[in-house]
């Protein structure tokens, strides 16, 4: 069963949606027919404004994650390797980690206003902790015998990190980043609902408030698809990174 076979039920679902709409079973003010959503989707995809919204969402995601990944991995590994760092950072991480990250949205509005920086900072802070925790657990779990052998063989701190700790911790760190990737989309869309003048989340909210429901559903499908493909792309990257493990 190939990719097409696997996803065939989705096609059936869309066909059932269209058929139910045509038969008048679905109130078009609650759910427009698939054909009108599809033509609205075509309209969105041929409108340069959509790409402007998409570009600013992408910038926020890349900015937030691009900061959170190196900082989070460094903090996590630092905590695992140094008692001082652990004593300083761990209690803070353990206290803030369970906090629902969306609660930071109003703080970001106050601190940074409605601009680009507020969204990037939100995604950075929200994604930082899952990455710190996964990197910490991963680096803590590295086989001590490996570390001792490398040290005995004369490896310096840098070599130890590059040759032993990072490769051994890599699978768990990559899995933590995958969680953060999903969370970054949630925070992106939520913050764009609440505090933005552009971006795909703003586009959805704007179309919804304007009552342009076929285009709103089309935009929701676009964001869903982007989240799905971002995850698939990351999964392929993860497998590529872990190829040496067989």
């Amino acid at each position, binding site marked *: 069963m190939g990719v097409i076979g696997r996803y065939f*039920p989705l096609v059936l679902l869309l066909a059932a949606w269209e058929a139910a709409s045509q038969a008048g079973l679905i109130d078009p003010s609650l759910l427009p027919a698939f054909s009108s959503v599809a033509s609205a989707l075509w309209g969105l995809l041929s409108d340069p404004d959509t790409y402007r919204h998409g570009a600013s969402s992408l910038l926020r995601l890349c900015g937030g994650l691009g900061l959170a990944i190196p900082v989070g991995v460094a903090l996590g590994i630092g905590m695992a390797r140094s008692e001082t760092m652990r004593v300083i950072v761990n209690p*803070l991480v353990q206290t803030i980690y369970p*906090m629902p990250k*969306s*609660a930071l949205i*109003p703080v970001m509005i106050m601190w940074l206003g409605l601009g680009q920086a507020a969204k990037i900072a939100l995604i950075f802070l929200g994604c930082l902790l899952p990455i710190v925790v996964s990197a910490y657990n991963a680096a803590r779990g590295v086989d001590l015998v490996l570390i001792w052998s490398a040290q005995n063989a004369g490896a310096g701190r840098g070599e130890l990190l590059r040759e032993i700790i990072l490769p051994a911790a890599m699978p768990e760190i990559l899995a933590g980043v995958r969680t953060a990737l*999903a969370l970054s989309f*949630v925070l992106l869309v939520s913050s764009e609902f609440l505090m933005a003048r552009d971006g795909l989340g703003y586009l959805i909210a704007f179309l919804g408030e304007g009552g342009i429901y076929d285009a709103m559903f089309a935009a929701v499908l676009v964001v*869903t*698809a982007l989240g799905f493909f971002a995850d698939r792309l990351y999964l392929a990257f993860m497998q590529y990174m872990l190829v040496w493990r067989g």
Partner: protein
Amino acid sequence: MAASRVPVATRLWHATSSVASLVVALIAWEVVARANVVSSFLLPSLSDVLVRVYTQALEGQLFVDLFFTVWRALAGFTLAGIFGVLIGLSLTRNRVVRWIFDPLISVGLPAPKIAFLPVFILWFGLFDISKILMAAFASIFPVIAATAAGAQGVDKFLVWSARSAGASERQVLGEIIMPAAMPEILTALQVALPICMIVTIVSEMTMGGDGLGASMLNSARFADSVGVFAGIVEVAITGIVLIKMLEFVRRRLLQWHQESQS
């Protein structure tokens, strides 16, 4: 490692070191805010924030907001738990159901479900029902996936032995499959609960109607930074309490399991 073998000094060090930096950070917050290094709008002092939490508690508004947020999050969580497990189990037992649901779940699991918030507003209005269903929808996918994976991973010999010993399908489900899949289901529920909290707070911010999220966004609108930070403190404590409660439930439910024996 038995606790009694660890020297008192070591245990004392562990206890202090596990909170010391948090206490220092809270004191630093107070000192920096009092010293007017940054404006009190950007960073109100911890004492002002705690006084606000206390006033909100006296006025009763804290308990109203707390009640609505916890009720919505837990109602969504309960729906996701019940229907997620039911759908997950039926996936492993029925090939047609699996064929239909498998692509939906593989698309839905990584997708940002919060994007459907305006759709839920359109369908279910602005009140509790749409917030609860939004939380349930956002958190059900990991439960379905974990239940299906857990039930599929059950040792076939256990199932065959139970059947040949005369167990009914219901007994096999209740006595073999559910307990064996339980650790994975509970892990998924531990993923689902924070999602429910995140989503509930976002939908309260978007739709209003009481709750900690609505109260925080109102404070931000009126540039009441003490109110926003009071909300952060309340949300953080609520999050920790709910997550610790679920960890407690996990330990109770898995008392028989290896993970609780160590």
